[in-house]
């Protein structure tokens, strides 16, 4: 990945003549990085997108707040993964239902996974497998996996993504690192490339999205073509550093100086540069392509995303979301469900296994919760084109890390994986769990929507954190 693969940070703008004028700094601060850091300071809300980064830093300093070290990695499998071909195989079902794959044993007695997931099978004690996920809106969108709520019937301002809520309520874990980062690239199917809307938390809490054209960091004086070469980018950053070190900044507001420091030397930039990773570690995450996967309308299936997420969590991001591959497998002529599974599942197995190992080896697994899911499940019956169609009735999810009680299966489906047979788990229960992991009590915490009406983050009267896991 790194800069040579992704058009990551767009540093655009006019000439360099007024680089270090006060006006330039205000511009720097008001774009890209300006959209975070208001959390818990009473400064959030829609319409604050233009508040400058120096202003945010000043306000955060005044709060004197220090936040807990909890974090979440959200992995969205764009399109709806086939639950019955991954974690809930039905080998006794008729051939038109059971599919082509065999289940294999795992390190957890009684838990079987697809034969294409041997890495996860060996790490099953670090996974919680939900086989009975319900409540899908049935919409081809990341929205529900990012917000926990449905697109329909949103409150004024819209439901905020988990990361936006974390930004607003908890703020940054580390200065210079946005609390909410989305690694989703721009996609033809824009609802899969959803960065996670800030909703009624306000634009100040929108995701920092280095790989999405629409939400990129901009700096004065560095042109987009320069970004095409990582070397050129780094050279220009080095040039900025030299200017900063020359004393040009002396006498300016210290917060501007700090903001400038973030933009030129932050751990964020380094975290996004995967070239800096130990090659042995990076090799574990090998696999995938930078090209859009499948039909070409989704993002790439690329394990560098997992590594980037770990690096961002490590330097202080609070919520990192990923859109991974294309899982909407209706069948020919775009390959059968099973051909696409043979393409995606081994990569997914390697990438998620590497992430779980990496988090554990770095001691991040106690604080960082990982959730993996898509917007719905897939039809039990294989269609005439060898595909499986949309099936909102039941889906699956994987959870790991965060000190959760893993090594277990929650819920079960009936004999054809059509509906939950026991312990249906609602999307909002998973979100209540994720909020719990971040230290947010969904039974108590409200945020005002744009009309000032307090809104609970999930319907806490029906859905709370999963007791099986916490």
């Amino acid at each position, binding site marked *: 990945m790194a800069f040579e693969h992704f058009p990551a940070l767009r540093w655009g703008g006019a000439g360099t003549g007024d680089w270090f004028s006060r006006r330039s700094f205000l511009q720097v601060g008001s774009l890209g990085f300006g959209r975070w850091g208001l959390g818990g300071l009473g400064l959030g809300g829609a319409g604050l997108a233009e508040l400058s980064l120096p202003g945010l830093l000043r306000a955060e300093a005044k709060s004197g707040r220090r936040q807990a070290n909890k974090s979440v990695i959200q992995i969205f499998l764009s399109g709806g993964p086939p639950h019955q071909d991954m974690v809930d195989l039905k080998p006794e079902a008729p051939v038109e239902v059971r599919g082509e794959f065999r289940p294999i044993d795992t390190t957890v007695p009684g838990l079987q996974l697809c034969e294409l997931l041997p890495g996860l099978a060996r790490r099953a004690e670090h996974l919680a497998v939900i086989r009975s996920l319900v409540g899908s809106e049935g919409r081809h969108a990341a929205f529900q996996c990012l917000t926990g709520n449905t697109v329909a019937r949103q409150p004024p301002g819209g439901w905020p993504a988990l990361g936006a809520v974390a930004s607003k309520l908890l703020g940054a874990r580390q200065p210079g690192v946005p609390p909410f980062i989305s690694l989703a690239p721009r996609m033809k199917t824009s609802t899969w490339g959803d960065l996670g809307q800030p909703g009624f938390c306000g634009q100040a809490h929108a995701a920092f999205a280095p790989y999405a054209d629409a939400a990129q960091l901009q700096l004065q004086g560095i042109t987009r073509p320069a970004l095409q070469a990582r070397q050129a980018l780094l050279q220009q950053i080095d040039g900025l550093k030299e200017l900063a070190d020359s004393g040009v900044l002396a006498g300016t507001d210290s917060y501007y100086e700090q903001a400038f420091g973030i933009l030129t030397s932050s751990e964020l930039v380094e975290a996004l540069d995967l070239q800096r990773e130990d090659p042995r570690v990076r090799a574990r995450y090998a696999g995938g392509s930078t090209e859009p996967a499948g*039909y070409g309308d989704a993002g790439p299936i690329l394990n560098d995303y997992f590594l980037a997420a770990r690096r961002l969590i490590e330097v202080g991001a609070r919520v990192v979301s990923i859109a991974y591959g294309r899982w909407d497998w209706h069948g020919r002529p775009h390959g059968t469900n099973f051909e696409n599974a043979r393409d995606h599942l081994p990569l997914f197995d390697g990438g998620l296994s590497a992430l779980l190992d990496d988090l554990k080896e770095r001691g991040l697994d106690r604080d960082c919760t990982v959730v993996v899911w898509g917007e719905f499940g897939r039809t039990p019956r294989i269609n005439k084109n060898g595909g499986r169609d949309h099936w909102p009735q039941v889906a699956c999810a994987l959870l790991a890390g965060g000190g959760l009680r893993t090594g277990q299966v929650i819920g079960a489906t009936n004999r054809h994986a059509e509906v939950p047979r026991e312990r249906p788990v609602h999307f909002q229960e998973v979100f209540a769990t994720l909020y719990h992991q971040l230290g947010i009590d969904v039974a108590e915490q409200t945020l005002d929507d744009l009309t000032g009406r307090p809104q609970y983050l999930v319907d806490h009267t029906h859905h709370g954190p999963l007791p099986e896991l916490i």
Partner: protein
Amino acid sequence: MRLVRAHTLAHNNAVYGVAFAPDGKTLATASLDNQVKLWRLADGTLERVLKGHGDGVAGVGYLADGRLVSASLDKSLRVWRTDGTLQRTLPGHAEYLTCVAVEPEGGGIVSGGFDRQIRLWNADADAQVAAFAGGEATVQCVAWRGDARVFAGAGDDNSIRWFDATERAVLRTVPAHAAAVEALAFDRQRRLISGGADGRLKIWSAEGTAVTEVDALTARVKCLAVHPTGEVLAVGGSDGVVRVWKLGAGLSEPIAEPAHRNTLYGVAFSPDGTWLAAASFDRSISVWRWEMSAS
């Protein structure tokens, strides 16, 4: 007989088709990444990328004069000059195209797809020559016979249809397999060989009678190619294994090359019979030297 691996080539998405140029120097590959790639056979170097299709490319075939024909899920065929420039686009199919075959000696093109139609084209005309009902379901495969203006088509209705391109007539329709017919190829004896999603290989006489049937050793046959000498048949299927069968009165025990991690969508022998290529859903193409004498 044996295969000696020469090159492994790649696309950014599943590879659906392969075809060798008449001069034997170039290999064309078609991919779900919307591109056709032209490779120099001698060293596996990528020579050219043909862009322009708005969706995946389902198949490719070379005309005798060296022009290339591509068929796309964007519902169109394209005819490319030997210098790689686009000569013409042939719209007409109402749904995804799945297959294409070119007349071995001449300008005929036949295509099939999700609109259940088999359409006959001439590479030098902008409009289709004829359209035929291809069956009760999606057409999955078409093939030209080498010695006459006869072609065949088959698909999801499990039947095979023979057509006369000159008379623009259906010659016969035969229920053929217990599942979709996914691959067709004529041999030098005017026999038609079919492979199906039932995992069977069948050989049909010129009159449409089944003369041989064997277990293909793969769950689903997806592609076939007859060697120019007519002595062997290459078969690819859902297990990613290339199998080369001796083709005599029947089909005898094949040699097997487990080359790919996913379904094979295309196999082809070079016109001089010295190369074999296989295209896979795993985004790669294998190219081997084919040595018949080793037997």
